């Protein structure tokens, strides 16, 4: 073998060897780099998944506790839910451990999650805060699990309230954790650590592979073997790369599982509002649409939001993508944290839901590239809150009613309820639907008549309420009257116009029912109180009222007089020495009371002058109402006179009004005596008052008196007037 050729022979494999080695070294370097990158990304993904778990934590607690409560109420077993709750509790504990000491977490799907422990000051503080939120709840949840099938609703409610109270903070913490992770990753990726890794790994690879070169130099003959070994190594590495790819694929599949099962709508949108490929299945359910990837988020919102809300939301997303604006300030004015949305219902009409949206920026290299959105259907929460508010309002009303009747004798309250129910029944009969269909077309007079009947009934309720100082009912009846007056002033009427009346009627009916309920409860309370004799002496069930009861009627009237006098600035005294409702048949007594209330109100509103005015015309400063028992001269009927010394009935005004309203002709007016003209005030719908006030003057009242006394009972009414001086009504009823 010659020297030259042997050297050449020697150099050739060395050259090949070096080439192969440097190729392998670079391959290894690239592989190592990709490996580090993959690990970084994988762990980043894991931490994000952990943050997602935290984000849904509050919703899960609430859902668990809620379903236990629902099952408990329905009498269903709760064992299965408790089992899941237990599993979830330990998952939660694992999660905390993971954040603090990097212990592996086994998710519900069975996957092992390797979360890097948080090591930033902010991250550690929120992780601790989260644990401090969880610890008391865990104690409560353990107790609930211990309770098994014998659940205590108070314990549940308490835990539920606790979870709800901290819900917002938990979501914020989740956001902070993922934010911290983003910062960490950005630093890792951008910082010199990765570069150093690459350099070191490359150098290591080269130096490790240099050993075979040295060996090659020494043992050239074995170069072929070394090459083969390297090739084997290469193929092994290739296989590992394929394995890594498979793992990444699997990780993606697992994130898909999360997206499938998470209970919240999660999505990413880009700056144009386009929804990304990965979003949670729940989102399709919430939006009632499928295949949302590629859809524009704003277009979906446009369909379900009001125009104003849509415009605000569009502006809001604009702000979110504007990297110059501070995220914290923008998150504070989230217009969609609770928003009403309407979906068209396939069965007709629409469905109203409440959604809660949370937003979070995804920042890459200082620019907001996407926005992460969480959506939850919070309809049940919102409805619950609303029901709570309503029940509180109801409680307040009941309190008002209760306060209202505390100072009144039970018997009187009962009478009020009975007459109110009678009036309400008359309203219902008048408004009966089937009659309306026939009556509504063109029969305006018919409808107006009905309206008048309804008004009379409501007015009566109002009068009685004012007499008993049931302020709440007085107010309700007054509002009811206003509604009727609105209809009265309409040029035309249809059956539909009565809808508001029907509603008001049903509201009033409910209020009366409620009053009745409170009254009966209060009755029990009073009997239970032990000193019921005093209170019930006046309400002998056989109607044998004692002397005190008439006094009460007069006392009540006196109270009414004082009340109205105060409001109107008048000064009036009521005298009724010998009057007693005793002298009337017991079934007429409520009517006597109603009539006296009405007459008193009318006198107070129309007849009495202000003190100054009275002094000017030479009367006493104080007006006087006198109620005196009497008998009818001709018929001998038992009755009373009601006299007031105010200006009485303004005959001139009555005449003008009667002519204007077409009740009489000017010629009739010439012929009629003053008393006859005065009797016109008993015509339905007639009033001389210029203004409508709460006290009187809506053109009703006197006509009810006439209808009840004369038409229903066969009694008599007399009027005697001396204009400017006094006015006396005589009311007479059969014995």
């Amino acid at each position, binding site marked *: 073998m010659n020297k030259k050729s042997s050297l050449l022979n020697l150099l050739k494999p060395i050259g090949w060897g070096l080439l192969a080695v440097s190729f392998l070294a670079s391959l290894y370097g690239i592989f190592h780099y990709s490996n580090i990158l993959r690990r970084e990304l994988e762990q980043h993904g894991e931490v994000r998944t952990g943050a997602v778990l935290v984000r849904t934590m509050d919703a899960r607690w609430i859902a668990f506790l809620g379903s236990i409560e629902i099952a408990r109420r329905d009498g269903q077993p709760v064992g299965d839910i408790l089992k899941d709750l237990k599993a979830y509790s330990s998952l939660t504990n694992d999660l905390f451990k993971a954040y603090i000491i990097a212990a592996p977490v086994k998710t519900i799907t069975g996957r092992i999650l390797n979360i890097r422990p948080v090591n930033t000051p902010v991250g550690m503080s929120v992780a601790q805060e989260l644990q401090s939120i969880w610890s008391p709840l865990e104690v409560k949840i353990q107790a609930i699990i211990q309770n098994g099938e014998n659940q205590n609703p108070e314990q549940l409610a308490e835990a539920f309230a606790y979870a709800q109270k901290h819900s917002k903070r938990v979501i914020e913490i989740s956001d902070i954790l993922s934010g911290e992770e983003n910062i960490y990753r950005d630093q890792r990726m951008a910082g010199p650590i990765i570069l150093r890794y690459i350099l070191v790994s490359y150098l290591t690879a080269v130096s490790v592979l240099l050993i075979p070169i040295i060996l090659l130099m020494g043992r050239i003959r074995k170069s072929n073997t070394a090459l083969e070994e390297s090739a084997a190594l290469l193929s092994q590495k290739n296989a590992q790369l394929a394995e890594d790819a498979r793992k990444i694929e699997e990780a993606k599949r697992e994130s898909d599982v999360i997206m499938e099962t998470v209970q919240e709508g999660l999505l990413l949108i880009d700056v144009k509002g386009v929804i990304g490929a990965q979003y949670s299945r729940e989102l399709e359910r919430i939006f009632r649409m499928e295949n949302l990837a590629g859809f524009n988020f704003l277009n979906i919102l446009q369909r379900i939001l009001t125009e*104003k*809300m849509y*415009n*605000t939301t569009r*502006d*809001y997303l*604009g*702000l979110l993508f504007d990297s110059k*604006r*501070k995220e*914290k*300030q*923008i998150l*504070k*004015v*989230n*217009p969609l944290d609770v928003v009403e949305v309407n979906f068209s219902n396939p069965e007709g009409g629409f469905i109203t839901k409440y959604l809660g949206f949370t937003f979070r920026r995804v920042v890459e290299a200082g620019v907001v590239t996407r926005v992460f959105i969480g959506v939850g259907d919070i309809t049940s929460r919102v409805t619950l809150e609303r029901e709570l508010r309503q029940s509180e309002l109801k409680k307040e009303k009941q309190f008002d009613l209760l306060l209202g009747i505390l100072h009144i004798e039970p018997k009187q309250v009962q009478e009020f309820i009975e007459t109110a129910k009678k009036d309400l029944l008359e309203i219902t009969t008048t408004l009966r639907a089937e009659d309306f269909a026939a009556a509504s077309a063109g029969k305006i007079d018919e409808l107006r008549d009905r309206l008048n009947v309804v008004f009379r009934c409501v007015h009566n309720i109002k009068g009685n309420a004012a007499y008993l100082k049931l302020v709440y009912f007085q107010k309700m009846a007054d509002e009811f009257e206003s509604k009727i007056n609105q209809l009265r002033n309409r040029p035309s009427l249809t059956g539909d116009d009565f809808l508001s009346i029907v509603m008001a009627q049903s509201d009033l009916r409910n209020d009366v029912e409620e009053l009745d309920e409170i009254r009966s409860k209060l009755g029990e309370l009073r009997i239970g109180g032990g000193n019921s004799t005093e209170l019930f002496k006046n309400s002998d069930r056989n109607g044998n009222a004692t002397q005190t009861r008439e006094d009460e009627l007069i006392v009540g009237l006196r109270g009414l007089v004082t009340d109205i006098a105060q409001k109107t600035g008048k000064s009036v005294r009521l005298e009724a020495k010998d009057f007693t409702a005793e002298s009337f048949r017991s079934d007429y007594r409520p009517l006597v009371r109603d009539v006296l209330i009405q007459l008193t109100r009318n006198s107070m509103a129309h007849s009495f002058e202000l003190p100054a005015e009275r002094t000017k015309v030479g009367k006493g400063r104080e007006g006087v109402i006198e109620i005196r028992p009497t008998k009818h001269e001709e018929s001998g009927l038992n009755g009373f006179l009601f006299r007031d010394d105010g200006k009485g009935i303004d005959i001139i005004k009555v005449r003008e009004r009667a002519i204007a309203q077409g009740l009489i002709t000017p010629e009739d007016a010439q012929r009629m005596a003053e008393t006859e003209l005065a009797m016109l005030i008993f015509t339905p719908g007639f009033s001389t008052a210029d203004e409508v006030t709460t006290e009187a003057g809506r053109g009703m009242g006197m006509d009810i008196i006439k209808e009840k006394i004369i038409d229903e009972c066969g009694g008599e009414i007399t009027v005697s007037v001396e204009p400017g001086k006094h006015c006396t009504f005589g009311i007479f009823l059969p014995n």
Partner: protein
Amino acid sequence: MKLLIVDDSTLIRRAIERFANKFQFDEIRSANNGANALKEFKNFLPDVVTMDITMPEMDGLTCVEAILREKPEVQILVISALADKSTAVEAIKRGASGFLLKPFTEETLITSLEELFEE
């Protein structure tokens, strides 16, 4: 650091002034409507403005825009009793840095002021 308080209610101006004392402003001035606020702003050139939304003469949102044209880096905290969320979004859109809902407390006001300077 200088603060300008803009609110048409004397009571609220005083309350903000008292609360803001904790923040150690070098000087605090106030204005009772948008037009006066703009005048005052040009002389005073404050670093922070608290701005009521509903005011006579010139409403708060218009005033925010006018002030930002004078000094773009000023921090404006819009304070409003309007719970309407579109108002809040509109305020931020026009360049306000923060939004605070009335009624506010000393604590919420201080927090909102601090947040104006957070990065």
